[in-house]
């Protein structure tokens, strides 16, 4: 029987790449295939996940398969890709360009640079297949040298079914579900996410349209990005919105769900996304989505939300107001998002796409 190793530099709960890895594992396992997850940093308790150093005990034959998740520089992983004699499929999640991190974090610059350099190598290895989270990622992969005939779009598996079943955190519901309109954004607090523009857009909305509003930014605050985080905080203080803007830091799934539940609008002004799973999570819950359509964002939202081609904070602020104040627009947009999710991004649909694309290697 073919052995399938799913490889990723790090596995944890709550990040998009890990959700995709675990989703793939479950689907392949359901097919009664011999499948394992191999990672260098294992941050979840699961005995079935093995250290990457043990992969050669599992992948022994040419017919065996590695599914390699690429989103950042990982030298050990790249060495395996070039040294192991087996079939190889890449799952590409996008690499954030290093430029965003200059002046904030040398480590992030190096990791992203490594990711881009390795992307150039991987794309030219002429492997069996290149699966990409989005059209944006696929175009990038082809531009780096991968053969178009070997490139496919396979959206990442998600955690939405699990979120749906969780008990919410009632402390959050009681604290934030009040008269204020909550505008939510989810994503790690990093310079490519465009939070400065989001804060400015929110400030306009709050000042000119609705004083009773709040911006909640849910996402991990990495210590190595403290310079950027301090910069954001200074901005919030400078414009005098300390009481209306909340940075939650890293949250667990129950808390994440609760922030979605109290959100009236999901807003995104990110400059770079390879897919943006939180958009799909918001759409699945009928939360109207308003976004700046950079990189993969427009393709992920499709006709399920309002996407602006320019990052104009006046436009974002007035769009929020329009959606919040018009009952019909509000519900229509929520339903449009849900329909986008239902028709394109349920795990059932992603499973069909995934298995049909990689079927010949199983």
């Amino acid at each position: 029987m073919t052995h399938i190793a799913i490889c990723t530099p790090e596995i944890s709960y709550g990040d998009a790449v890990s959700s995709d890895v675990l989703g793939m594992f479950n689907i392949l396992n359901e097919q009664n295939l011999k499948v394992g997850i191999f990672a260098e940093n294992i941050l979840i308790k699961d005995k079935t996940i093995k250290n990457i150093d043990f992969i050669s005990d599992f992948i022994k034959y040419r017919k065996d398969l590695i599914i390699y998740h690429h989103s950042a520089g990982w030298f050990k992983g790249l060495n395996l890709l070039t040294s192991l004699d087996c079939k190889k499929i890449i799952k590409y999640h996008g690499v954030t360009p290093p430029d965003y991190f200059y002046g904030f974090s040398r480590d992030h610059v190096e990791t992203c640079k490594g990711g881009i350099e390795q992307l150039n190598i991987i794309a030219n290895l002429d492997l069996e297949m290149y699966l990409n989270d989005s059209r944006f990622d696929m175009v990038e992969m082809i531009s780096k040298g991968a053969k178009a005939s070997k490139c496919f779009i396979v959206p990442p598996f998600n955690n939405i079914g699990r979120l749906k079943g969780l008990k919410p955190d009632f402390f959050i519901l009681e604290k934030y579900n009040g008269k204020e309109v909550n505008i939510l954004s989810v994503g790690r607090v990093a310079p490519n996410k465009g939070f400065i523009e989001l804060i400015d857009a929110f400030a306009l909305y709050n000042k000119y349209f609705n004083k009773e509003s709040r911006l909640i930014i849910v996402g991990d605050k990495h210590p190595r990005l403290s310079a950027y985080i301090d910069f954001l905080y200074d901005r919030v203080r400078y414009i005098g919105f300390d009481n209306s803007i909340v940075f939650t830091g890293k949250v667990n799934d129950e808390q994440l769900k609760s922030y979605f539940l109290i959100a009236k609008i999901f807003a995104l002004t990110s400059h770079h996304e390879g897919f943006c799973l939180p958009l799909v999570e918001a759409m699945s819950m009928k939360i109207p989505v308003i976004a700046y359509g950079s990189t993969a964002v427009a393709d992920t939202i499709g006709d399920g939300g309002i996407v602006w081609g320019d990052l104009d904070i006046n436009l974002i602020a007035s769009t929020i107001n329009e959606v919040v104040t018009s009952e019909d627009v509000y519900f229509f947009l929520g339903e449009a998002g849900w329909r986008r999710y239902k028709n394109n991004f349920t795990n059932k649909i992603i499973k069909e796409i995934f298995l049909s694309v990689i079927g010949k290697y199983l």
Partner: protein
Amino acid sequence: MKRIAIVIQRCHEKVVGGSEAEAWHYANLLKEDFKVHILTTTAVDSERWDNVLPEGDEISNGICIKRFKVSQGRADYWGEICKQLLDEFNNVRSKSSTKLVKRLIEWPTALQEEFIYKQGPYSDDLMDFLSEKGEDYKAIIFLTCLYPTTYFGMFHVPRGKIIFVPTLHDEPPIYLSVYKYVAKRSRIILWNTESEYRFGRLLWGELPGCVVGMGVETKESPPAELNFPYILYCGRIDINKGCAQLIDYFLKFKKDCPSDLCLVLTGDNRTKLPTTKDIVFKGNVPEVKKLELMSGASIFIMPSPNESFSIVTLEAMAQKTPILASNGSEVVIEHVKKSDGGLLYSGYEGFKTGINFILENKHEAKDMGEKGRKYVIKNYNVGKIFKKLKDRIESFD
């Protein structure tokens, strides 16, 4: 033969419930002209929605009942969300004007849906079925507003096929604004009574719809032969149906006005009934037995403030039994006032006076009975309801 689907949260002969009875009634009315499928869950109990019945098809009385397993029953913590909703409801009500539309609870959609979803019963398989097969039906009738089978189900089928039977009554969850949105998604709304229609318009605005209601059994039954005079209540014996107050009032009445009068109760009991010979609990009784009990009762009592149609009140009227009803439910008030088939009470004194008046004035009581029956025959005979329903469905071509 064209297909009609009726979506209802549960369907089984053991189930007692107004909307469930209405779904079954519509299915039976339509089965001669259409191939009727009842789409429902495997649940029977409405407190937890556990999977009890087998999944799959059952043919009953010529109707195909398709049962789908419940994937989300009542969540343990649903009461906590419910409490937040009640707080919000009271908060909005205390601030708002008398306009009902201003009282809508404008929670974010995701939170409103969490309340509906975790209330249960939700069935992934039923939703998949509606998505895949909804197009095959000429019309899909969704019964009762509050439950996830209706709310979420309506998003899975083409809007042009939706007939919505909300069975509205004035209770806090109905003020969630998402219900207004799903009501707008329907092609037509069928109301059970004029008062429900008025309430719906005040709450959701003007929407396409008409009053249809249910047909009521009008064949006269022989009176049940009990060895004592009795007041009858039929339906769920529940605090929300006003039954705790009914029992308190009745026991006080017996102290104030001693006699051999008893209170007879039929239906699912969800309260602790006092042990006394004055209160006779008969549990769930067959339809025939229920009509006989109605026919033999001195008074049919309706204490519930939460009725959307109150079929039992109409059934008792059809058996010429005078009605004594609390003035808490718009629809029951409408039945009593339009028919002159009974009296309304408010508070214990009204309750006591009402009973004594009916028991002591045989001629007036008989007259109420006659008028009640006339009202039911005129407005709720089965043929008339069938024609209204069929005309609406035919208009979908």
